[in-house]
């Protein structure tokens, strides 16, 4: 007897991210497909637009991580116009960027993905949400999270025009600098940010790492994939969100590639399937072998865990301590456990906060020297940043007047699309046996999703920490014979 199970998480923007599960005659999972039914065509409709508009247009791809697109786009413009920003402008950009990483990660840890752990993976879904988190850690802390994000986002607004869609980055610099009296406030908020990030690590350790059951879940086979990892690193091969080279390590942790983003086309290609709108990036030199892990498959992973795996450490002291503890505790590098993303994200919060503070204290950021003007004729520009959800590449080609003729974007979540699909399939295989399944599958699949914080419009989130899922069980003719849902 052959069934088809459809799991429909109601995501935003794409309408649905859908999972199709096909069972063989014995009722075991034969294949599972992760479907993204979304396409908006940004790469096409920017044609003919002036290149300097790209940092305004592209953030509208995602309102949760607009700063990532704004910055990748601005850096692509530096490259397009062959102009280096002066040092104060670079520092201001990197500071804004780390502020953004801190508040965005905080949103995920406390509100979107964290409830699974802070409240507990076995808790009732009514409790697995931000309110549950507040109950567990106390209202004061809940308020602290809200006010921390508000304070950071208010400063981002001051510096870059708006927080939801900045208007600030230009080829060779930024349009607005920082006054000395404003800078003091940045230092204050950054100090709070460091404290807040360290506190978050403590919460994570107290609640998650001290719980044997959670640790078993993190290290369970269901959530383990041995893939390549990709991340941005500085000259010392330490994690950097704003700039650096792209480093790839193989499933054993050996350096596979270290390259400048300008060469990305030699390393990354995109595979197309008939049944989904998302394209699947893979390592060109390894090749597309399907949705499988291991050294012979070109599937790679990005985002917090991948960044830690693809680097040799963190560039700030407290984050480095947390990094060392992470690998010591798990006893191996690279770590292949998808759920370790949550822990990695907290470590990155510490780095983002420390880096924010370092830059806020730097007197150079109040300099008026915030822009170099290009004299070059534009043709091709490529830029990269680490979005919260992973490597983000913007590539523009223009005519000599700087009007876009071609654009190519490799968006963070896309890089993880194949691995997300594999996680979903693995969860399905582990939980559906001989045609038998129960509602547990919903939670297991949700957890796999949320660990990646996928941003199919940064969307599979719902604040109560549950992605509404609908499973349709179908017979061979496609008739629905059973339904399971979590809403």
């Amino acid at each position, binding site marked *: 007897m052959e069934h088809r199970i459809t799991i429909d998480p109601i995501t935003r923007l794409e309408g649905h991210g859908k999972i199709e599960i096909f069972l063989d005659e014995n009722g075991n999972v034969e294949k599972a497909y992760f479907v993204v039914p979304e396409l908006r065509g940004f790469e096409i409709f920017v044609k003919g637009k002036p290149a300097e508009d790209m940092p305004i247009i592209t953030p509208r791809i995602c309102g949760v991580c607009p700063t990532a697109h704004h910055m990748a786009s601005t850096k692509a413009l530096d490259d397009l*116009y062959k102009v280096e920003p002066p040092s104060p402008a670079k520092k201001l950009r990197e500071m804004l960027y780390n502020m953004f990483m801190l508040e965005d990660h905080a949103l995920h840890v406390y509100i979107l993905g964290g409830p699974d752990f802070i409240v507990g993976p076995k808790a009732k879904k009514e409790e697995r949400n931000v309110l549950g988190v507040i109950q567990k850690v106390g209202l004061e802390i809940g308020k602290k999270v809200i006010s921390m994000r508000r304070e950071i986002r208010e400063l981002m607004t001051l510096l870059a025009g708006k927080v939801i869609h900045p208007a600030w980055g230009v080829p060779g610099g930024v349009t607005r600098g920082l006054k000395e009296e404003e800078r003091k406030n940045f230092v204050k908020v950054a100090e709070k940010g460091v404290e807040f990030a360290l506190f978050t690590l403590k919460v994570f350790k107290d609640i998650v790492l001290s719980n044997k059951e959670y640790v078993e879940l993190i290290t369970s086979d269901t959530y383990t994939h041995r893939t390549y990892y990709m991340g941005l690193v500085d000259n010392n091969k330490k994690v950097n969100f704003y700039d650096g080279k792209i480093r790839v390590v193989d499933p054993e942790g050996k350096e596979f590639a270290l390259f400048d983003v300008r060469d990305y086309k030699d390393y990354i290609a995109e595979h197309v399937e008939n049944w989904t709108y998302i394209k699947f990036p893979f390592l060109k030199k390894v090749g597309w072998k399907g949705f499988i892990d291991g050294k012979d498959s070109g599937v790679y992973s990005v985002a917090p865990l991948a960044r830690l795996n693809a680097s040799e450490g963190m560039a700030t002291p407290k984050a480095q301590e947390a990094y060392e503890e992470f690998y010591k505790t798990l006893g191996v590098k690279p770590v292949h456990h998808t759920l370790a993303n949550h822990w990695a994200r907290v470590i990155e919060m510490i780095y983002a906060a420390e880096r924010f503070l370092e830059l806020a204290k730097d007197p150079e950021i109040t300099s008026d020297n915030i822009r170099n003007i290009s004299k070059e004729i534009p043709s091709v520009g490529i830029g990269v940043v680490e979005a919260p959800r992973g490597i983000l590449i913007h590539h523009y080609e223009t005519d000599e007047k700087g009007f876009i003729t071609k654009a*190519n974007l490799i968006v963070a979540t896309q890089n993880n699309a194949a691995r997300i699909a594999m996680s979903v399939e693995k969860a399905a295989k582990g939980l559906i046996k001989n045609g038998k399944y129960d509602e547990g599958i919903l939670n297991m699949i949700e957890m796999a999703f949320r660990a990646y914080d996928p941003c199919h419009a940064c969307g599979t989130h719902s604040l109560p920490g549950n992605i509404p899922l609908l499973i349709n069980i179908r017979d061979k003719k496609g008739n629905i014979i059973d339904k399971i849902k979590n809403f």
Partner: protein
Amino acid sequence: MSEKPKIALYWCASCGGCEEAVVDLAEDILQVVEKAEIVFWPVAMDFKRKDVENLKDGEILVSFINGSVRNSEQEEMVKLLRKKSKIVIAFGSCAYTGGIPGLANSYSKEEIMNYYYKEGLTVFNPEDKRPTPQYIEKNLAFEIPEFYERVYALDQVIDVDYYIPGCAPTRNVVKNSIDTLFSGNLPPKGSVLGASSKALCNECPLNDTKPEKITLKEFKRIDKNQPEKDKCLLIQGFACLGPVTRGGCEALCVKANYPCTGCFGPLDGIEDYGAKALSFLASLIDSNNEEEIEKIINEWMPNPLGIVYKYSLPKSLIFETKNKKNGG
């Protein structure tokens, strides 16, 4: 049973920025929760379309809908919310005027698909696979939604009572709109809520430096020019759209020394923002000779469509022949 008024929030083809705009109310969100019962908000609560279907017609006091409409599912959902709501509000630029995704209306779906899955710079697709709405592989049938040929603003699909402008609406605008709605003192249908009724220049800190009459010999692009601080961007030659754009955003972009790109949309009584913006820019040029004016515009921006219609192409009377869904 709660006696509080019921409200719903929904997104269509949006980027999530409008949800963030609500979350950015931060501590103030608690006041909203005190005054109203949120019955539907996919990002923050269990999605219960059934619950909406089970409500009586008109039982929801206000539905805030953001994002543009571009597929059948979104159309169904907004029609359902319309039926169940006394008041429907188009929240943010996409719902109000079509938004940046509306720029896709210059291209056919075929052109978009072709580039994305075939000609794109990193696409590796030797078998020429293409996402197919009804796709069958080994007797297994997949379905993915079919997208409409074009993007619609919300009032091109359903009747809309009020508009909240901005990409995204700023915190104060969201707060003001909610206060207006709770005050019970509702403005006439079709009004824009939460923002100013005057042009952006009125609240711009650089307004004192703007002369009565501006004349320009050329427009400057920001790619190779840095705006001076503390001086009206328009008199510097940057195409700041402040004079034709509704205020209420506190001039945040201009305070970051960046020219206004018009996300708050037109002033009252202006049907076609882009046409208005373009004629305004042309009127600044220091010439009475049409050819010369055209030459100056061309020199600056051969195709100004993406500048003047950045947030409102689907509402353009000039470029859009079919402004209503189903040709209505």
